[in-house]
């Protein structure tokens, strides 16, 4: 399954890119599994996603929890809790 990943704030900085296209194995079915897959993929992923509680996600523009399914999804945005306003 191919999806777009978008990174923001220190997630973007640690990953060294604002986003990428990834081909996910079929076993990676939800946001929590995606975070685990990224953390296991390489050193940057490990440094960024070691503590998944610090990460928030949005699927196609809507906030999504760790068990949100990835089937049919175009974009997953990954970022820290917001600090705006």
């Amino acid at each position, binding site marked *: 399954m191919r999806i777009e990943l978008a990174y923001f704030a220190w997630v973007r900085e640690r990953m060294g890119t604002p986003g990428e296209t990834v081909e996910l194995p079929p076993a990676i079915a939800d946001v929590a599994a995606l975070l685990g897959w990224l953390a296991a993929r390489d050193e940057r992923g490990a440094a960024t996603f070691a503590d998944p509680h610090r990460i928030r996600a949005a699927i196609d523009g809507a906030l999504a929890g760790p068990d949100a399914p990835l089937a049919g999804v175009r974009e997953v945005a990954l*970022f820290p809790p917001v600090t705006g306003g």
Partner: protein
Amino acid sequence: MIRVFVQAAPIDVGAEIDLHDAGGHGASASFIGRVRGDAGLTELFLEHHPAMTEAGLASLAHAAADRWKLGALTLIHRVGSMTPGETIVLVLASSRHRAEALAACEYLIDRLKTDVMLWKRESFADGRIAWVEEREDDRDRAARWE
């Protein structure tokens, strides 16, 4: 009239108040948030998720307009690089009655802190650069409106 902007350009508070107030509303409440030059801060950078930030602000504005009788509502959030003293966010809420204008203004600024897809990065005179951590009291204040 609801006006919502996310912009990299400086916010001209006086001009926005004039535009907003053209309707001659009975009561106008405003909130202006500015960059504080604390602890040697030299730059505030505000990163945003463009589509989600605009949708989030518009949705907040409509929620406020549903909840209170407002004659006008202006919500402007700056993004990108700012220096101390510059305006980050401007909320203007007008109504016939002061209680509604004040409540809408407070609601909007509280929810803005937690509901809009923005992240702050601070740079300091000593070279230190740090992303701002989520504040628990912001979550608490926003939760008052649930």
